[in-house]
């Protein structure tokens, strides 16, 4: 909700700015005051709000699942175990239908991706002013609570997946095999340099598209919530309720897409062409 002293564009940019901690070339170590300063800090800065929320939600995920895993029984499951089992079976089914090699990493990886991204996306449904307002009262000027609207977060996960793709490609086919796969197709061998260029672009496009798809969807969703929040408070529900309901689909779908694409990419890394 825009207060009288803040213009719409200030309100929007405020809500889209991360709380960045880093070494400003002129002001030294500290939190950035605005997007401009955050950009000036360059690479060696960290978005504290993204990290707090993403690690916090990740911890929530592992804590809850670990709690269930510790008390797990093959007898009659309780409610929590039922819930967790539903998720695990859903993931397991997906992994088994896509990934046909033996690799104990893939299923837990897919589970982590799905649940963690879902939780991070879910923060989008928290009314956008609540937590930033509380943080503001505590003297923290910027506080974004949806980590997946930070391209660093989605990029961090996407490039980790990319590292796994490269690692398993090399492990499965050897460096030579991997290079051969990159350079001897789709065109005949004489076009190897061109093929290599094409395939490397294609390879790099995987993590970039993974990161940007999730980021773009969540950023756009967040943006629409911010725009809706500019309306008078009594009119907001007309748009925010349908959008939030629709967004439940989006956040689940995006988490699912990220997971499925990760499995697909890793299955391709394991397959010999």
């Amino acid at each position, binding site marked *: 909700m825009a207060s009288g002293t803040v213009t719409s564009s200030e309100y929007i940019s405020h809500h889209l700015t991360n709380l960045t901690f880093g070494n400003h070339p002129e002001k030294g170590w500290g939190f950035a005051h605005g997007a401009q300063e955050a950009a000036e800090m360059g690479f060696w800065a960290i978005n504290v709000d993204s990290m707090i929320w993403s690690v916090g939600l990740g911890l929530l995920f592992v804590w809850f699942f670990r709690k269930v895993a510790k008390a797990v029984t093959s007898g009659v499951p309780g409610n929590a175990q039922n819930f967790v089992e539903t998720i695990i079976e859903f993931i397991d089914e997906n992994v088994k239908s896509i990934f046909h090699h033996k690799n104990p990493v893939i299923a837990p990886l897919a589970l982590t991706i799905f649940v963690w991204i879902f939780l991070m996306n879910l923060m989008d449904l928290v009314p956008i002013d609540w937590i930033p307002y509380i943080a503001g009262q505590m003297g923290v000027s910027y506080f974004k609570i949806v980590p997946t609207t930070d391209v660093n977060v989605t990029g*961090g996960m996407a490039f980790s997946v990319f590292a796994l793709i490269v690692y398993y490609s090399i492990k499965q086919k050897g460096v030579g095999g991997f290079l051969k796969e990159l350079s001897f197709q789709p065109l005949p061998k004489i076009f190897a340099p061109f093929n290599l260029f094409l395939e490397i672009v294609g390879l790099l496009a995987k993590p970039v598209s993974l990161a940007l798809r999730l980021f773009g969807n969540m950023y756009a969703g967040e943006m629409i919530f911010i725009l809706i929040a500019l309306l008078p408070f009594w009119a907001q529900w007309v748009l925010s309720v349908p959008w939030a309901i629709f967004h439940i689909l989006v956040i689940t779908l995006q988490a699912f897409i990220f997971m499925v694409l990760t499995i697909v990419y890793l299955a391709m890394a394991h397959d010999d062409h």
Partner: protein
Amino acid sequence: MNINLTIIGQAIAFFLFVVFCMKYVWPPITGALAERKKKIAEGLDAADRAERDLKLAQEKAANDMRASKEEAAAIIEQANKRANQIIEEAKQQARVEANRVKASAEAELEQEINRAKEALRAQVGALAIAGAEKILEASVDEKAHAQLVEKLAAEL
């Protein structure tokens, strides 16, 4: 959207969560699921087996029942036959006994009649002689006339 250290921080966190999940979350839960699957399979097996056993037991019981019924029927039939036989034998015996009694009674009667006839004959002989003595008024030599008297008695 400026790329900064967060991307590395996120990658590290991601790595740690995945490793944790792989070590401490996924195996126990999927293990429990597999175990439950096994248990259910065993349970279904046991149920099948029990059903089969029940059917067998029922069949056996029915067979036993039929066999014992047949046996009982056979025993009853035999008993009836035996009873009839005993009755028949008793009747036979009674008939034989009755005939025997009747025969002995008849024989006795015959004997009695004969004895009576004999006595009568003797008395008639004596009477005839006495009568004849009275008529002749003379003593008849019993010895000379015994033949005559006996002849007379045999004619009676």
